[in-house]
């Protein structure tokens, strides 16, 4: 064979295989899903980098460790003991990580002007909007529920037991403790725990040199870097309506480069319909003691004229995005949008949001508006039911 041919043929083969490889054949993410948190949430990952399996393993280990301490349903957890058993002043030991999480949660209550709180569990139970409460309602099968709604006096009483200042967090000789001054204080970290865990997952990716990845903790999403191939991540926001059927699609598409977290809170997954005409959902406004969007009027508890159906917050910190999206639902549409804008103006320029509102005229719900805060690359999509486009309110 001539020298030219000896070089040309292997070179040709190499070129062809390289072309095939660059088509994506062989460049893949490690993808996996596990169910964690005492079988209540799922963690899905797409990771590209060294030892993605080891990284996922470490993430699960960290997440399950935190759950072991803060699960309010697990009788062996530190939080269960604090909620159900501990006497006032009795110290319950927690890890440094959970101490951090709880300190952050207390701080977030201040930052959100009290609209986000980890201490509302007594109110959730009162309104039957804790897990046991809203899970008893199946919109496909059940008619409106008929239980007696709490009176404003009962709400005020329960609200008194939802005071975060009754929580004490202490450090002593390298160990960490929590205790309560009010026996009735009950904590639930459901509104911030997923975000906090997602932040830890981002840290694990950093430490292990994983430069492209996505972690999705039951809808609480963090993305790192760009996708393989250099594109931005394509994240969708689930449409909050229609509420009583499972056939909703996606209402908008976000184009995001990492590192950023995207978290959505809304009123369309955990709620019930009540015969009085209200449809309360699981997000309680700690300041009023009532579910978000529910107000006390002349005829008793009523649906507010306008309320938030879904709030999606983007931020560098997932714990913050998680708490902020919950807070915006509690604040309501106008106040929530204004508050987020004020956050941006006080230096949190990484915070951005999409808020959907709904209006109620006493008879039926009608689509409200959509508000976009901060610069987001965004496109409205058509949902499964060819949902009418929202009007847009500027902030």
């Amino acid at each position, binding site marked *: 064979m001539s020298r030219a041919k000896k070089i040309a043929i292997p070179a040709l083969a190499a070129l062809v295989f390289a072309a095939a490889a660059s088509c994506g054949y062989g460049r893949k993410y490690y993808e996996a*899903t596990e169910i964690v948190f005492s079988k209540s949430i799922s963690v899905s990952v797409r990771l590209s980098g060294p030892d993605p399996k080891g990284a996922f393993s470490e993430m699960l280990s960290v997440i399950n460790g935190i759950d072991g301490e803060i699960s309010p349903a697990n009788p062996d957890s530190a939080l269960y003991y604090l909620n159900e058993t501990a006497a006032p002043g009795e110290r319950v030991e927690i890890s440094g990580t959970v101490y951090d999480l709880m300190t952050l949660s207390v701080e977030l209550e201040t930052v959100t002007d009290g609209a986000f709180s980890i201490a509302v569990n007594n109110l959730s139970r009162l309104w039957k909007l804790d897990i046991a409460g809203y899970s008893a309602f199946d919109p*496909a099968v059940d008619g409106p529920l008929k239980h007696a709604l709490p009176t404003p006096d009962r709400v005020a009483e329960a609200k008194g037991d939802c005071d975060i200042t009754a929580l004490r967090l202490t450090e002593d000789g390298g160990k960490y403790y929590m205790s309560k001054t009010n026996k009735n204080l009950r904590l639930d970290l459901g509104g911030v725990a997923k975000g906090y865990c997602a932040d830890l997952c981002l840290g694990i990716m950093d430490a292990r040199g994983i430069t492209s990845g996505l972690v999705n903790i039951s809808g609480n999403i963090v993305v790192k870097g760009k996708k393989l191939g250099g594109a931005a991540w394509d994240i969708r926001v689930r449409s909050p309506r229609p509420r009583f059927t499972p056939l909703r699609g996606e209402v908008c598409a976000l184009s995001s480069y990492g590192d950023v977290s995207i978290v*959505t809170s809304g009123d369309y997954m955990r709620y019930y319909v009540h015969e009085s005409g209200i449809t309360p959902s699981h997000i309680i406004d700690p300041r009023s003691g009532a579910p978000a969007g529910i107000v006390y009027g002349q005829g008793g508890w009523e649906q507010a004229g306008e309320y938030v159906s879904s709030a999606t917050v983007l931020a560098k910190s997932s714990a913050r995005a998680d708490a902020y999206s919950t807070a915006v639902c509690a604040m309501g549409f106008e106040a929530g949008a204004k508050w987020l804008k004020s956050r941006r103006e006080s230096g949190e320029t990484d915070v951005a949001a999409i808020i959907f509102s709904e209006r109620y005229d006493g008879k039926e719900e009608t689509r409200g508006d959509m508000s976009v805060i901060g610069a987001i690359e965004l496109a409205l999509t058509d949902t499964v039911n060819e949902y009418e486009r929202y009007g847009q309110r500027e902030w």
Partner: protein
Amino acid sequence: MVDERKIDIIRSGKPCRVADIIAAAIILAAAAVVFAAALTKKGGAVEITHNGQRQTYPLDRDREIDVGGLLTVVIKDGAVRVTEAACPDKLCIHQGAVRHAGRAIVCAPNGIVIRVTGGSGGGSDAVSG
């Protein structure tokens, strides 16, 4: 006995034309197979994982699946969704239908993951909400 003509040809470095053409053809054919395999849109599949066991079904055939007596999963018109669930909050039903690779429906209380794999991409990377 060695054929002197063949030795002369080899020594001279002139191309053994037929052999070269066959070699090149084999390499190109192999490359074509690689290309075809990489670019072919295989039908998408639905992977259902439960109790550490995984069952796979093609996405392009309509069917109804009972998962451990806990969920009813329906594959119809190239998409999969949960229609009945024996779990407290039925969030898996509310997640709606998925059809794109990488998307999943999870029933956490029952430990069931329903994931779409393979097939054409073009879906989103994740859904928040």
